[in-house]
């Protein structure tokens, strides 16, 4: 559930757009480099984007009695690192804002920041951390996808709280209210996303993907 069209003040729209821009440029450069130097990684790039398309189209019911959708950003992050996912997320968000009136062009920068930048950075850190602690790939992928999904909505809540502070209790008060709607709803969805991400990674591993250079983060560092 992205921030709706027109629902961020102009300064915030511009600010988040400027904050997201360098990540997008970096990500586009990395994708170009991957396509040039590792043409064999092309199908995995497609899988990462495709997973984002599927998961962010699934509006699922949650224990709060409302609906939201997962993001799908964890898979691309463990495969290619966070900057690539910024670009893939931007494509999905553009599709949704133009064809589905979901999210919006004026809130695109903020939504790219939460789903395509903050989420993947969290996933990357969690995945690296889990690996350093000796967790297997399955556990690492699960945790990375879970925290990327949940983290995205925590950031969305904070973005809204910054834009719409509570007249009485300020930004913190507003954050609590938005987190109550977004973050709690998202917990079961983040678990679902994490389970499905492990399923896809299992399918990839069964097909010998770990022998490719394409599983960059699984094999070596990829920022």
């Amino acid at each position, binding site marked *: 559930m992205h921030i709706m069209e027109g629902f961020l003040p102009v300064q915030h729209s511009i600010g988040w757009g400027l904050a997201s821009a360098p990540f997008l440029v970096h990500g586009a450069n990395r994708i170009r480099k991957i396509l040039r130097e590792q043409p064999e990684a092309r199908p995995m790039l497609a899988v990462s984007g495709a997973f984002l398309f599927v998961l962010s189209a699934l509006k699922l019911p949650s224990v709060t009695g409302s609906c939201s959708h997962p993001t799908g950003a964890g898979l691309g992050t463990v495969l290619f690192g966070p900057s690539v996912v910024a670009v893939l997320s931007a494509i999905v968000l553009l599709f949704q804002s*133009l064809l589905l009136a979901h999210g919006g062009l004026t809130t695109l920068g903020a939504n790219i920041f939460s789903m395509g930048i903050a989420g993947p950075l969290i996933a990357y850190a969690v995945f690296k951390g889990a690996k350093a602690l000796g967790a297997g790939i399955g556990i690492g992928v699960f945790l990375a996808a879970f925290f990327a999904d949940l983290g995205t909505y925590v950031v969305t809540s904070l973005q809204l709280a910054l834009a719409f502070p509570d007249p009485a209790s300020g930004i913190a008060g507003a954050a609590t209210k938005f987190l109550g709607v977004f973050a709690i709803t998202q917990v079961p969805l983040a678990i679902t996303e994490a389970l499905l991400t492990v399923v896809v990674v299992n399918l990839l591993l069964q097909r010998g993907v770990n022998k490719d250079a394409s599983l960059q983060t699984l094999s070596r560092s990829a920022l």
Partner: protein
Amino acid sequence: MTRQNLILIALAIAISILPLFMFSDGSAEFSGADGQAEGIIQELHPTYEPWAAPLWEPPSGEIESALFALQAAIGAGILGYVLGRRHGRKSA
């Protein structure tokens, strides 16, 4: 690993349908969380007017769900194509 995947998929389905049983008395609307956030914004800042509207909106809920299905279908198609191709290459 196939067995593990089946268990993981079953769990994902269970978590997704659990809320439907929790609110089987009809007390939940299962509306979008973004709509609820809009409610909070209006409550905190009643004078805020969105300064932009979507360029185009799906004319009905049916068409919107068709486009969401299209989005999922594009993704699932690509996912199935790549996984199937790899599977075929491995067993060939």
